């Protein structure tokens, strides 16, 4: 029982695992933001296809969303304002999951426009499906994990904290 409790504590406190997840998800957001940003017109078409907002709104979303993804991704990779980035990411995942679920319920099938994998030369179909919803749900929980974690290894935030403590006079040993 004690081992389990300590394991949960360890997971929650932040460890190399959270760092890998954080940097991986950040890189994913940067990539998906850049491919969308390369061709905003196509992405506006994708937004329109979801039929969740008035068609006039699609260009605004196509302008802002990819850049937001790149900004958040960069913050996650570098480890600046990690909690806020994870919070915004979770909000984005909720939006994506809702959009895909509603269209699945409507009986639609179209390319989800998530990662534009064909740009990488991969001939993978990314049609909206319950699988994609599950995948996004999984990503949501990973972001939640990052949000809860209390410290982030290999991040600018951690570096600054170390520097601050050092300036206070001597680094205390790692907390128990």
């Amino acid at each position, binding site marked *: 029982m004690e081992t389990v409790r300590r394991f949960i504590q360890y997971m929650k406190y932040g460890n190399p695992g959270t760092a890998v997840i954080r940097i991986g998800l950040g890189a994913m957001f940067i990539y998906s933001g850049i491919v969308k*940003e*390369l*061709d*905003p*017109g196509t992405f*506006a*078409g994708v937004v*329109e296809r979801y*039929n969740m907002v*008035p*068609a*006039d709104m699609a*260009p605004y979303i*196509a*302008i*802002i969303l*990819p*850049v*937001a993804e790149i*900004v*958040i991704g960069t*913050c996650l990779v570098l480890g600046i*304002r990690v*909690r*806020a*980035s994870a*919070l*915004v990411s979770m909000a984005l995942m909720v939006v994506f999951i809702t959009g895909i679920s509603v269209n699945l319920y409507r009986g639609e099938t179209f390319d989800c426009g998530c990662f534009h994998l064909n740009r990488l030369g991969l001939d993978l179909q990314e049609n909206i499906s319950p699988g994609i919803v599950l995948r996004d749900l999984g990503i949501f929980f990973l972001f939640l994990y990052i949000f809860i974690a209390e410290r982030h290894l290999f991040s600018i935030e951690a570096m600054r904290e170390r520097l601050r403590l050092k300036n206070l006079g001597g680094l205390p040993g790692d907390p128990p």
Partner: protein
Amino acid sequence: MTGENSSLIRDTAILLAISVFLALAINYFHPLGFRFVSKKENRSLAFISVEEGRIKYDNGALFIDSRDPVIFGFSHIPGAVNIPTIPEEKSLERVNVFLRTMDRSRELVVYCDGEGCGSSEVLAERLFRAGYGRYLYILKEGLPGWRSAGYPVEESE
């Protein structure tokens, strides 16, 4: 805890503000970016000649015939879709269905029976009001102009 929460809210706001600002700046310089057009300018209808219409036709534009279905049955531009302007209620319904199902990347060219017929403008106005804002043209000389230029017309006996 409250301090932590307020700094979280502040950080989130900062992130969103940076994103919006950067997004607008990037969009401004992006070669494929969007240009803001006032709604007033956007609503103005573009009239095109039959020659311009032919170029659009060859490039895959979708032609919309705003005349009566019976007259449409006699003759129309090949591939045209018929959306009559009367009765109004039915016309509005067809416009909505059409906008939901059409391929948004195709250009639209509306025509009727020549310059004075007016129904193409009425229909174009309805398409705008139903939320269509791009690639909408009116064939100024209508079907008679198209026919006299010797361009293809689908006729039935």
